[in-house]
């Protein structure tokens, strides 16, 4: 199977490439001739129902699972020819069950790979401190704790810090946020996005949660029964799922999910009628299709007006729940439009001043494009 080049792959180099890899466990074929390209400095998410081979694929990459056939090339070299130990030390590894050493403190756990690599002891304590800060754990509080004293979310953070321990160029993550409650999970995802923006690692991430996949992925690989069904950017997959399986997997609200990929500044209309007073017919004629936003002295929108069927409809804008930021997703804009009851949502800047509006019809155009 030859993969056509994807936009995401053409804009960055290929970090790692799997060519027709198969894995056989006794009678069952866990992977069937999978070919895959992993883009450098991007988040690649492998997703699919259980038993689809996503974890097996990940474990092939750091040689925890032996290939029955095919090759994985890393740079110019096949990983089969590389020293397993060195290969794994060059790849951060974070798993769902975390697997912290129960007899080692948080600091010693995070420090494990640098210790295995024989790094100079002097810099390591400082490095542990930086890593704990990065995953938002206060080093002073957590350094000397033991894994049994941590909550699920804290343990997962330590797991991520440990995977980043020796500053590997690539991170392999097997459902790293799988074992925590939804609220903590969302928080960990936010932090992951934040960390990834700073570090720009090549990440290979396995999950079965489609919302998590769409949030985190630059490149999404959908697998089923040991085969790759579709591999593309999340936007492309949501716009045109390849077959019924992918469509079902994405769920009935895939157009809504697609909206979460775009932000308000993407389609925000900046020149909108606004003023300190309620609108007169001269500023908002009866045949106008746009909204009028009444603002206070600070420029914060307080009321929205619009002509609907010959009647001037007005809605009081509550700044907390009825406005969106420029970086809000179109999905949030949609929710705001519905809760405000006007066919547009006011976009505000960081100080809460009126910046523009996002219209329902624009969102509609995007969702079907």
């Amino acid at each position: 199977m030859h993969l056509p080049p994807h936009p995401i792959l053409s804009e960055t180099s290929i970090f790692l490439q799997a060519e027709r890899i198969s894995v056989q466990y006794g009678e069952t074929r866990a992977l069937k001739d999978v070919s895959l390209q992993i883009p450098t400095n991007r988040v690649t998410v492998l997703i699919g129902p259980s038993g689809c081979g996503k974890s097996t694929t990940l474990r092939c990459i750091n040689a925890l699972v032996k290939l029955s056939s095919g090759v994985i090339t890393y740079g110019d070299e096949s990983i089969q020819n590389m020293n397993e130990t060195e290969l794994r030390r060059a790849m951060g590894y974070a798993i769902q069950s975390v697997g912290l050493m129960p007899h080692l403190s948080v600091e010693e756990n995070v420090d494990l790979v640098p210790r295995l690599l024989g790094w100079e002891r002097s810099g390591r304590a400082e490095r542990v401190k930086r890593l704990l800060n990065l995953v938002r754990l206060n080093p002073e509080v957590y350094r000397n704790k033991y894994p049994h004293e941590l909550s699920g979310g804290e343990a997962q953070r330590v797991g991520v810090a440990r995977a980043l321990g020796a500053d590997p160029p690539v991170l392999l993550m097997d459902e790293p946020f799988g074992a925590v409650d939804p609220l903590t999970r969302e928080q960990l995802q936010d932090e992951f996005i934040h960390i990834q923006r700073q570090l720009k690692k090549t990440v290979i991430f396995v999950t079965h949660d489609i919302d998590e996949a769409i949030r985190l992925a630059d490149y999404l690989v959908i697998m089923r029964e040991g085969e790759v069904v579709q591999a593309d950017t999340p936007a492309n997959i949501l716009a045109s799922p390849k077959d019924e399986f992918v469509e079902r997997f994405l769920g009935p609200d895939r157009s809504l999910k697609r909206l979460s990929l775009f932000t308000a500044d993407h389609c925000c209309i900046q020149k909108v009628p606004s003023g300190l007073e309620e609108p007169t017919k001269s500023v908002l004629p009866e045949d106008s299709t746009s909204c009028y936003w009444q603002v206070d002295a600070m420029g914060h929108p307080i009321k929205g007006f619009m002509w609907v069927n010959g009647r001037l409809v007005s809605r009081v804008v509550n700044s907390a729940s009825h406005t969106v930021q420029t970086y809000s997703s179109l999905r949030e804009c949609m929710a705001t439009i519905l809760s405000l009851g006007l066919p547009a949502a006011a976009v505000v800047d960081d100080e809460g001043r009126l910046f523009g509006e996002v219209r329902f019809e624009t969102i509609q155009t995007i969702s079907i494009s």
Partner: protein
Amino acid sequence: MRQSKRSASPSRHVLTQWIPLLLLTIGLILYITSPTLQSAILSLVFPHETQFTHARKTILQMTGAHITLTIAATLLSSVFGIFIGILVTRKAGREFQQLVLKLNAFIQTFPPSAVIILAFPVLGFGWKPALLALFLYSLFPVLGNTVIGFNSVSPAAIDAAKGMGMTWFQQLHIAELPQALPMIITGIRHSYILNLGTAAIAAVIGGEGLGTIIISGLTLRNSALVLSGTIVISMLAFIGEQLFQLLSWKQTNHDGSTHIHD
């Protein structure tokens, strides 16, 4: 908060553990070195007896022989037990695990006296058959506990250890051994207590431990002699138990520094 709690408790713990241990050890040393003290204590319990010491050997000699035999057998079974235990919990040796454990349990069902008597024609009279019997008999707790200890290491920790690129040996001594160690120490402790008791039987074939005085007490119908040997053995058991407890307390309470072997 936890820090202060942790640093306060060890010192108190150590104090309450060490003081009785120290007192007992002093008492034991006084008892085994002074025949006068032995007679004084035993005559309190058995006022009608006239003989309170063994005809040929002192309690000190017998205690020395008893401790030597017990420690030698415990060391031997620890070395072999841990070694075999590690082998059968590795990937390559796992298929032999059940076989080894069954064989081990089978040996355990032999009464130690039977082992001693069966070994007698081959190894003769003296400490050799005694050591063999003790070793075989006390292998079970160490081997069994080593296997349980390694089997109970969390699979996630092993997966993580492999995934971060530990070699076979690093995986064993950084990830697995420290987690299995409390269980192994418990096994060694059982083995020590077992040996302490069984070593008394070795006197039948010429082992020179405290069994000598107990057996001569039994044949002479002199309960004072039996008690004298028993007092020493039970004190040795108690002291040993305390020492092991201190050792495993250090292991299980994450005294971080004890685990770093760079």
